């Protein structure tokens, strides 16, 4: 399901970072990686040569890990070129590094990763690198944050796929509290039923599945729960219907990608696929 990945590169990444990401991609059953670098300005012949050498060195590292690798250079608006390249190559997903920026820098310069998340029709793996954990990068615990809506039907096929496996899966639901105690009890009961249903759908792919139900605002709460349970991967669906507030401030998926302490796998809505 996730055999072919497109990896956008700035060509400033450390080798260790790429290797760590490559190691994690193996957990998805990925076999082929297409490396792409998008230039935003004209470069001289010497610079071009340096960039080509750099991307080749990255390709060698990935080949050593057992990936089939091809390389591309593009020119133009970075996010647009990444998304169109992914469509052109018919990759299964995009794997990219998260470049955290401070609020002011993000507000002034924007964030390419956020733009890709917003524009892409494909699943996106956002890799968050930790120098302290880089040597023993693992994916033993994953957390799927569900809202029991249309995103389930897009995310569950990935979770049910034996290639996409971790030891433990947490299925998390974050919702608003009902207006009265009776409606709240009813809501909780329905959530437990839905969590049990999702658990049964992907039980065969994991050693252990735990369900978690909490009350709060989805964005911050999902991040908080990911920290609390110390998960290695957070899986979320991206809803295409955004409220006016989300359109201005960014979607929940963008917020989680920015704040989450671990890597994230984002699955988009159906009509974009």
């Amino acid at each position: 399901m996730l055999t072919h990945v497109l990896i956008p590169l700035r060509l400033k990444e450390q080798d260790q970072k790429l290797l760590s990401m490559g190691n994690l991609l193996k957990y998805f059953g990925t076999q082929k990686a297409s490396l792409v670098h998008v230039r935003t300005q004209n470069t001289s012949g010497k610079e071009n040569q340096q960039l080509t050498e750099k991307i080749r060195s990255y390709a060698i590292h990935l080949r050593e890990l057992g990936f089939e690798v091809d390389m591309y250079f593009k020119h133009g608006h970075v996010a647009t070129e990444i998304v169109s390249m992914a469509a052109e190559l018919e990759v299964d997903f995009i794997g990219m590094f998260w470049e955290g920026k401070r609020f002011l820098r993000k507000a002034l310069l924007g964030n390419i990763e956020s733009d890709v998340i917003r524009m892409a029709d494909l699943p996106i793996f956002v890799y968050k690198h930790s120098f302290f954990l880089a040597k023993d990068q693992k994916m033993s615990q994953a957390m799927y944050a569900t809202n029991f809506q249309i995103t389930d039907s897009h995310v569950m096929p990935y979770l049910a796929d034996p290639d996409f496996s971790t030891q433990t899966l947490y299925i998390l639901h974050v919702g608003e509290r009902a207006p009265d105690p009776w409606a709240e009890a009813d809501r909780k009961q329905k959530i437990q039923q839905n969590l049990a249903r999702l658990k049964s759908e992907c039980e065969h792919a994991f050693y252990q599945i735990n369900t978690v139900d909490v009350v709060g605002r989805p964005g911050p709460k999902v991040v908080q729960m990911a920290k609390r349970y110390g998960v290695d991967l957070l899986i979320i669906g991206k809803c295409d219907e955004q409220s006016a507030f989300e359109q201005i401030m960014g979607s929940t998926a963008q917020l989680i990608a920015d704040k989450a302490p671990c890597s994230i796998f984002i699955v988009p809505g159906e009509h974009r696929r």
Partner: protein
Amino acid sequence: MKVLYSPAYLKKQIVFGISLLIVLSLVGLGVVDPAMLDEYSSLVHEYIIETYGWGYLISTLIFLIFNIWLAMSKYGTIRLGNDNEKPQYSYFGWFSMLFAAGMGIGMIFWGVAEPMSHYLNPPEYLASQSDAAAKFAMRYSFFHWGVHPWAVYITMSLAIAYFSFRRGMPPLISSCLYPLLGEKIYGVAGYCIDILAVFATVFGIVTSLGLGAMQITTGLGEVFHFVPTFQAQVVVIAVVTVLFMISSMTGLDKGIQILSKTNILLAITLLGFMLLVGPTAYIFNVFTNTVADYLSGLFNMSLSTNPFQGYAWTQSWTIFYWAWWIAWSPFVGLFVASISRGRTIREFVLGALLVPTLLTFLWFSVFGGSAFFLELQEGAQIAKAVSEDVSVGMFRLFTHYPLSGVLTMITVLLLGVFFVTSADSATFVLSMMTSQGSLYPPAGKKIIWGVTVSCTAVILLYSGGLEALQKMAIAAALPFTVIMLLMCRSLVKGLRYEIKHRKAAEDNEQA
């Protein structure tokens, strides 16, 4: 005895016990050392008004915008009760009770006094007793008694009515925060909120009862030519207490409703008489002009703190009023909620926002306008009399009209009945709040609260601690402003949840 001391029983009485203890302690302090109570309450009051005054202005405007948005939104069709429930009271009964509980009493007190006070003592940037000051006086009288106070009341009562009648929770302030606090409303957080509500209500009603007794005595003194003494004020409070206790025992359906309807008829009769006998064209000119001023300057006035000139005036009038309305809101909100079952949110908001406001504008135009006519055209010294004693404004106006004795008696009667209805509804609300939101609180609690309120008013009238208590009530407005903003959030969450689930259920049915 075993029942009395069971943990479940004590838990049920926790709000009642603690709030009664706090009230009695503060009243005790007011009796033993009124100067000390005044010193501390003034300190707290001044600090709050000075530091957070701007917050009251912004919050009140938020409540107004919130109400209008709710009424116009898809949530407007949601009924405060079951889907097919009909309103319990007719429009006339509902409006009468709204008015009686909300501000009837204050309007009689301030109908003449407020425009005259602003005319005589406007902010520094206006000349005293000028044409501009007269225009300003009417505009700000409309502003202080217009849609903003009702927006505060509606916000509180809407949340209470929705969570109690629609969601089946007890009619308590704490119930409204369930979507935000969850089960914590049954713990310390919930108790604190309800105790604060009792605190604000008791001190609010004691202050009103004390100040109102002073005005009734003044009115009676004008008619029967005697000097209003403390003894006369005690007699007035005693009579009012007996009446409101009788009314309280007969229940909401009979007592308050009959009294409120009677009162509104009396008020309309008085209004009609003054309009016909007084300078009718002048009054309508004042009304039309001030409505235009009010509407065009609504947002400007809503956020005018006047930091450069007139700051002290804004603090002592607008911010004081806003804090007072917010302090009163638990009482009025609970009462208004209890009489609004079965109405839709749109009907409730528009009805409670527009009808009382229109009547208020007419009232101020008739009484304020008549006073201005006499002051400006005939040189009557009403403004001067008001500056010496605020409670005489209305009565001095009547001396320039035929049948002044009858008019004064009708006003005293109106004041008395408004007092009885306010005290009656306050007793009902206090008993309800301290009985875990029971709509049929025990008679014993009604008697305890009724007697406590009246005795406190008498004692503080004697010791001089009444104004200190009013400042304490206003201090309670600050936490309540925060609670009310949270209530708005909580209400929206509740309504959104309901609409979302209704839509999901409809989709399931169609599927």
